[in-house]
């Protein structure tokens, strides 16, 4: 039965965005309420769909050239997408409401909410897409809204640069993604997931082809989910408003890469090599980001690197061919990371946009609700039982233990680091002395901000339990590893947190200074150098070539040359009659010679 619900979910935010852009840019309050109403409608519809077992929706033909290509805008409505819808719209709704408080005094509130609505539209599109091109369309739109929102405070140079960096970096990933799509399309003749799946077995005779195609598709996820080596944009993206960091750069959009990988797992899993590469990329990202996080001082950046690290876990899970584990972690991560960011946002606003953790301290007394919710999120993040993160991370580690020992060891190491930097953050921000005037004068946030925090905290705490999560996801099957892996994980947690507490208790500055981590492994510098010496150099050489060789040299040169010859030729016209007669005679002789004697 065709239902209007999927279309409603998709279009409600779009309508809101269009309406705000066209009519309500001046009325900030109106636009924020329209936007919130739209997301609530979508949330309600998502919940409705979630309860219905079989549902379908009408298809819209976007492009159809008979026989050559048909691109429908149609929906995949399985358990996976339904869950994702609920998570996205749920987290989205809380963040919309939170934004009401956070963006209270912002000039560009209407623009913010329009972009937020547009983001919801695009994100729903990704979740619902039933084919590669539609996925790509919304994939790009999500990137666009991310660009707009990161650059919300466009007049700050850092924000503007970060927005560009984010968009361009993900575009590089999309470059591969598109080639991958094209290859899969050529090989199977279709772009619709449901039609490709049965044709994949035909491709076993082309293992290299499948590997390349799978890895190229994975490139898209590398860009969007900020995996190594395209991870550099995500920390910078923290220049955007904090709710955006929570929604887009923690809970939903960056997770879209993982969602996409799960969605197209039939391609990835067709190649063992590809899987291995994916797993290792995830692992490297997880470990590297965790290492960097230990030496950061900006509260949002620490959280951003933790996001990277957790995304690494998810990608690792995909690479280990367990979609369930990846989705489970995505699910729990969405809640606790949104929570962490929102709590951090609460702190930042109350401290008048102070983000340096060394200027905070002792905030557990000033901001009790924020502290409590932040702590819940942090515990979930480090995988402390019984918070949600424990279950999902344990599932991934157990998987790794079973399938790939080096990855497991690195995963465990990352877990230690995670515990270390999160506890470091907690200790520095919430305990000890208050280290700045702003921190001393701060007070608790309004209820419009703490409300969403509490809601999310509940989910972050409970999200991992089977009785809750099973309603949403096919949970990964518990392995026979028994208590060994959880025990190790718990051990890692203890070691990490113990170290952090030991080192950072009542410190006013960082006792550890590891240059390479503080500089994020010099990735930005490396890329800047690379870009400068490849693209920029090429660009400058080409521009020089174009301006001086082709344009001035060839084009102007030939015109000037012609002019010059003309100027010489007219000198023949010397004005003396007898010279003319002489030339006339020469001409006669030449003509006679040419006509008669040759």
């Amino acid at each position: 039965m065709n239902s209007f619900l999927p279309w409603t979910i998709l279009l409600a935010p779009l309508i809101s965005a269009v309406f705000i852009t066209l009519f309500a840019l001046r009325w900030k309050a109106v636009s924020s309420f329209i936007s919130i109403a739209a997301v609530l409608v979508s949330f309600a519809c998502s919940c409705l769909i979630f309860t219905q077992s079989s549902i379908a929706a009408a298809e819209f033909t976007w492009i159809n050239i008979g026989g050559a290509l048909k691109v429908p805008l149609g929906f995949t409505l399985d358990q996976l997408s339904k869950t994702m819808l609920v998570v996205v719209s749920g987290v989205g709704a809380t963040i919309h409401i939170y934004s009401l408080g956070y963006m209270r005094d912002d000039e560009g509130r209407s623009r913010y909410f329009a972009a937020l609505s547009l983001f919801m539209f695009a994100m729903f599109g990704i979740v619902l897409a039933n084919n590669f091109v539609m996925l790509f369309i919304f994939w790009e739109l999500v990137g666009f809204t991310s660009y707009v929102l990161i650059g919300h405070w466009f007049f700050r140079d850092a924000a503007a640069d970060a927005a560009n960096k984010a968009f361009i970096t993900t575009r590089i990933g999309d470059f591969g993604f598109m080639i991958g799509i094209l290859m899969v399309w050529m090989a199977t003749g279709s772009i619709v997931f449901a039609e490709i799946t049965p044709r994949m077995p035909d491709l076993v005779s082309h293992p290299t082809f499948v590997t390349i195609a799978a890895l190229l598709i994975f490139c898209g996820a590398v860009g969007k989910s900020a995996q190594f080596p395209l991870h550099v944009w995500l920390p910078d993206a923290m220049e955007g408003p904090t709710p955006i960091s929570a929604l887009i750069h923690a809970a939903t959009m960056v997770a879209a890469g993982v969602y996409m990988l799960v969605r197209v797992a039939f391609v990835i899993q067709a190649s063992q090599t590809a899987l291995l590469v994916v797993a290792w990329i995830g692992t490297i990202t997880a470990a590297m980001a965790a290492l960097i996080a230990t030496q950061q001082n900006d509260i949002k950046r620490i959280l951003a690197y933790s996001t990277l690290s957790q995304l690494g876990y998810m990608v690792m899970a995909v690479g280990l061919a367990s979609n369930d584990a990846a989705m489970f972690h995505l699910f729990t991560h969405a809640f606790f990371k949104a929570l962490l960011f929102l709590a951090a946002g609460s702190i930042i606003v109350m401290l008048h946009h102070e983000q340096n953790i060394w200027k905070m301290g002792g905030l557990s007394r000033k901001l009790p609700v924020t502290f409590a919710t932040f702590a819940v999120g942090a515990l979930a993040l480090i995988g402390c039982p019984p918070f949600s993160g424990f279950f999902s991370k344990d599932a991934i580690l157990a998987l790794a233990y079973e399938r790939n020992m080096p990855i497991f060891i690195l995963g465990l190491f990352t877990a230690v680091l995670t515990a270390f930097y999160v506890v470091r953050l907690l200790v520095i921000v919430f305990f000890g002395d208050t280290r700045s005037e702003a921190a001393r004068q701060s007070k608790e946030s309004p209820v419009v901000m703490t409300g969403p925090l509490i809601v999310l905290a509940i989910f972050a705490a409970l999200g991992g339990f089977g009785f809750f999560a099973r309603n949403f996801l096919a949970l990964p099957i518990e392995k026979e590893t028994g208590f060994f892996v959880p025990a190790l994980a718990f051990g890692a947690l203890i070691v990490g947190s113990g170290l952090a507490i030991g080192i950072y208790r009542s410190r006013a500055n960082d006792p550890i200074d590891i240059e390479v981590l503080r500089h994020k492994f010099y990735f930005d510098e490396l890329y800047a150098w690379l870009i400068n010496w490849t693209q920029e150099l090429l660009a400058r050489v080409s521009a020089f070539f174009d301006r001086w060789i082709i344009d001035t040299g060839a084009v102007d040169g030939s015109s000037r040359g012609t002019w010059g010859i003309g100027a010489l030729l007219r000198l023949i016209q010397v004005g003396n009659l007898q010279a003319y007669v002489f030339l006339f005679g020469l001409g006669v002789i030449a003509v006679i010679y040419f006509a008669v004697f040759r």
Partner: protein
Amino acid sequence: MITLGDYLIVSGILFVIGFAGVMLRRNLIIILMSLELMLNAANLSLVAFSRFRVDSTGLPNYDVQVFVFFIITVAAAEVAVGLAIIVALYRARQTTDVKDISSLKF
């Protein structure tokens, strides 16, 4: 016996002398005379050709000999106009030397 070739050679030499006069002499009157010489060289060839090309009736082609009279007439007209121009030039510039009339150039 004087052959056609001899006439043609003389005519050619006259033509070249005329051309050389036009090219080398500075005085416009003499240039005009040299031009007449060239025309008359051509006339000589015409008459010679006419005289030596005898058709079936044994008579030369008199058409061309009449043509020579045309040429002479036209040449006279040319000289008349030419002299008038030279006189006008002399009045205006007090010169008949070609090297003085080269203000139009390039």
